[in-house]
């Protein structure tokens, strides 16, 4: 084993290690000795210059060339292994982040967004019901606030201080108690029969819709950007490693051809082993990466994209629902002037916008769903939305005819109310979200699995390959002894 190590250490060209190695070698080889003496005659030379000269001299002899070739091949294979390990590791880390870090955080941000919108909807429904507020509505409201608060803490822990997300989280943490205060004032006043409660509720709704939800949406978008970055880091092919691998394979092939031409021997077991391991690493890397890529791309196309669309649709349905409640709470207290100078009820207008957004979202979600299990809940949500719209028209008619009681029970009643439709839409969307999250986890998990062991495997195999190359060359070299 000493010899191959020496020869592999020779090419780096540094004079110090080559100095003790070369003289005995050249002495043993015999043939180049006479040529070497004139080179040694100049009396005063630097160690470096002497080393270079010695190298140059060695390159002219076959053993010297063999040593250089062996060293180069070993270096190529080791470099290939190192780069392959490094590049696959960074991709595997990014893929792992997609699955275990950025997507869950994006989900958390979506949960904050959703909880806030849901809390607002529940507050409006509860207000409209007044003293008959169902305990479930109140509980859901409290749960939403709790969810939002605790997810904000998680999000804060995963955010760099000073980033845009950190600012948003601070703002949301300040606004949340403000919002809750307004809702409680609304409730307290409503319980005393004071219409100022309605004004408080509108103020709460305004805080939520115009300050908190846009911020929550921004946070969600930031987390999605982070997720997209991780996807961007996980999916490109490791081109540098592939190129080095091909180069190493080419070098090994050339060395074996040279060997064959000089000695007429077909196989050099060391070089063959080196070629085989290099080829295995290269193949493993390309195939594993292709599979991982496919899995990750699939998780993006069928998971992340669908999840985004479904989240947006769910928010639209929540906003539509809270507007629908507020039409009856505000009773014309707030109007909006459209571009064509037409004056409309602000919440009536808001409802129309959101229900249209819900319709578009469901259509998109349907086109993105890739299996019947994904399409089914979307279809249910869609049909519930249609019923919702037609019931809402009935409610509007009753409201416009001044039949407040009928309108109110049409919105929050137990029998054939729009509330039932909203609940159905919401539950179906939750089902769809669960399904798509599962799809995402499956695909991204498969992708990540395809990279399992690749980093360590590439490193170990490349070392073995390098050893093979050195041994193979060493065997040829030993023939010169």
């Amino acid at each position: 084993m000493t010899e191959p190590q020496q020869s592999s250490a020779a090419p780096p060209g540094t004079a110090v290690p080559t100095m003790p190695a070369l003289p005995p070698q050249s002495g043993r080889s015999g043939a180049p000795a006479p040529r070497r003496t004139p080179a040694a005659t100049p009396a005063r030379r630097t160690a470096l210059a002497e080393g270079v000269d010695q190298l140059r001299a060695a390159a002219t002899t076959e053993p010297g060339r063999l040593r250089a070739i062996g060293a180069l091949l070993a270096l190529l294979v080791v470099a290939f292994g190192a780069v392959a390990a490094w590049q696959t590791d960074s991709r595997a880390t990014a893929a792992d982040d997609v699955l275990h870090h950025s997507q869950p955080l994006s989900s958390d941000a979506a949960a904050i967004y959703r909880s806030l919108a849901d809390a607002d909807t529940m507050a409006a429904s509860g207000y409209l019901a007044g003293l008959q507020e169902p305990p479930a509505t109140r509980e859901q409201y409290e749960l939403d606030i709790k969810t939002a608060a605790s997810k904000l803490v998680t999000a804060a822990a995963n955010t760099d201080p000073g980033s845009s997300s950190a600012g948003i989280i601070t703002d949301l943490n300040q606004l949340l108690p403000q919002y809750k205060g307004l809702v409680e004032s609304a409730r307290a006043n409503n319980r005393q029969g004071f219409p100022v409660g309605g004004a408080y509720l509108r103020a709460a709704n305004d805080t939520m819709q115009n300050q908190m939800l846009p911020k929550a949406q921004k946070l969600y978008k930031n987390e999605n950007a982070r997720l997209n970055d991780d996807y961007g880091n996980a999916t490109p092919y490791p081109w540098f490693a592939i190129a080095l691998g091909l180069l190493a394979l080419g070098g090994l092939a050339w060395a074996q051809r040279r060997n064959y031409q000089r000695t007429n021997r077909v196989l050099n077991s060391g070089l063959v082993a080196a070629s085989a391991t290099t080829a295995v690493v290269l193949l493993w890397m390309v195939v594993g990466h292709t599979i991982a890529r496919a899995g990750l791309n699939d998780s993006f196309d069928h998971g992340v994209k669908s999840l985004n669309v479904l989240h947006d649709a769910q928010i639209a349905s929540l906003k539509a629902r809270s507007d629908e409640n507020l039409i009856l709470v505000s009773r014309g207290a707030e109007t909006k002037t459209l571009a064509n100078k037409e004056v409309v009820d602000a919440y009536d207008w808001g409802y129309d916008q959101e229900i249209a957004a819900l319709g578009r979202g469901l259509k998109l979600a349907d086109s993105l769903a890739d299996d019947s299990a994904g399409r089914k809940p979307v279809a249910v949500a869609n049909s519930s939305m249609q019923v919702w719209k037609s019931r809402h028209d009935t409610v509007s008619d009753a409201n416009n005819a001044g039949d407040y009681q009928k309108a109110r029970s049409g919105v929050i009643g137990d029998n054939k109310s729009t509330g039932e439709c909203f609940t159905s839409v919401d539950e179906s969307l939750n089902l769809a979200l669960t399904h798509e999250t599962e799809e995402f986890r499956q695909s991204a998990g498969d992708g990540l699995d395809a990279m399992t062991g690749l980093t360590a495997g590439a490193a170990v195999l490349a070392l073995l390959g390098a050893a093979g190359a050195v041994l193979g060359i060493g065997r040829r070299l030993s023939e010169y002894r």
Partner: protein
Amino acid sequence: MKGGVTMRARSDFFRRLSAVRRVRAGLRGWGGVGAMAVVCVLAVAFVLLLPLTQSRGEAGADLGGQRTAQGVQAKAAKCDESTVQDQSPPPADADGTTINAIKERGYLNVGVDQNSYRWGYLNPNSSGELEGFDIDLVHAIAKNIFGSSYSPSKVRLLAIPTDQRIPAVQKKRVDMVVRTMTITCTRLDDVAFSAPYFVTGQQVLAPKVSTIKGYNDTLAHKRVCSAATSTANTRLHADKGHKIPASVDILKAVPNQLDCLVELQLGQADAVVTDGALAASQAAQDPTVELKGTPFTTEYYGVAMNKDATDLVQRVNRILETYRTSTGPEGWHASYTKWLLPTLGKDSPSANPPTPHYK
């Protein structure tokens, strides 16, 4: 026919100008008798040329146009804000086309407010029906129109936003609007009003402990809230630096007068300016605030109806005659005692119904 078209064009034109005129009211003083004569001549010439110069007249911003409006206004004496409440036709009992149509339909469509405590609001804790001073009046009107066939279901109360009161009447979405609606010259161009049924004025509302004493210097450096497009908001901006100190901080106008009470309670505002009736309605919802000083304007509430519904206007005036004087449980005084006495008191200028004068 040609005359009719000209008249309509003229009245349109003057309506637009009267708005501009109010802004430039300061100009009124310098016109002497001579100037006035010149103005009148100009006015006549202008009016005669109107059909030809329609597009130029519509621009209406030139000074000549303004003086014209003033001159003719003075001559015609058509509408004066101080007597605008006296422009309603005399009471009558006859059923006309409008009343017959209502009877045939079987119910009365009325635009009301549903957020004004003690005036028209939905009590979530009682029957879930609307109640208040305005609602009492609506039922008194319906009782008279339907006579023995009256029942509460003969009335359909529609929530009408403040800025939709006039369009709702004009487009006949409702037969009438009973919704703390002040009789003004501008509105009189678009709708017909009954004789006044309530007198009030813009007033300041502030916490009881506040140093604010009324619409005066005590408002210095205070944050004052008012509703968008309200009389209060217009007056605040006009009076700033004159009747009230220039240091008054007029807050961004809110969509609804009740939003001012929210701001007041949250400590974002120091005072609210709105009309006394609504200020009283706010005070009724918060025992820590009260009306400060006396009303600094005089305004009359009337029932707004379509301009074509003269029979209905006259009938409502007849109903109001009895309603005002009735001492029974369904009269004006009983309603006032029930809804408004606790906050407005018995010494308020609003404590008695206004005396009607007819056209």
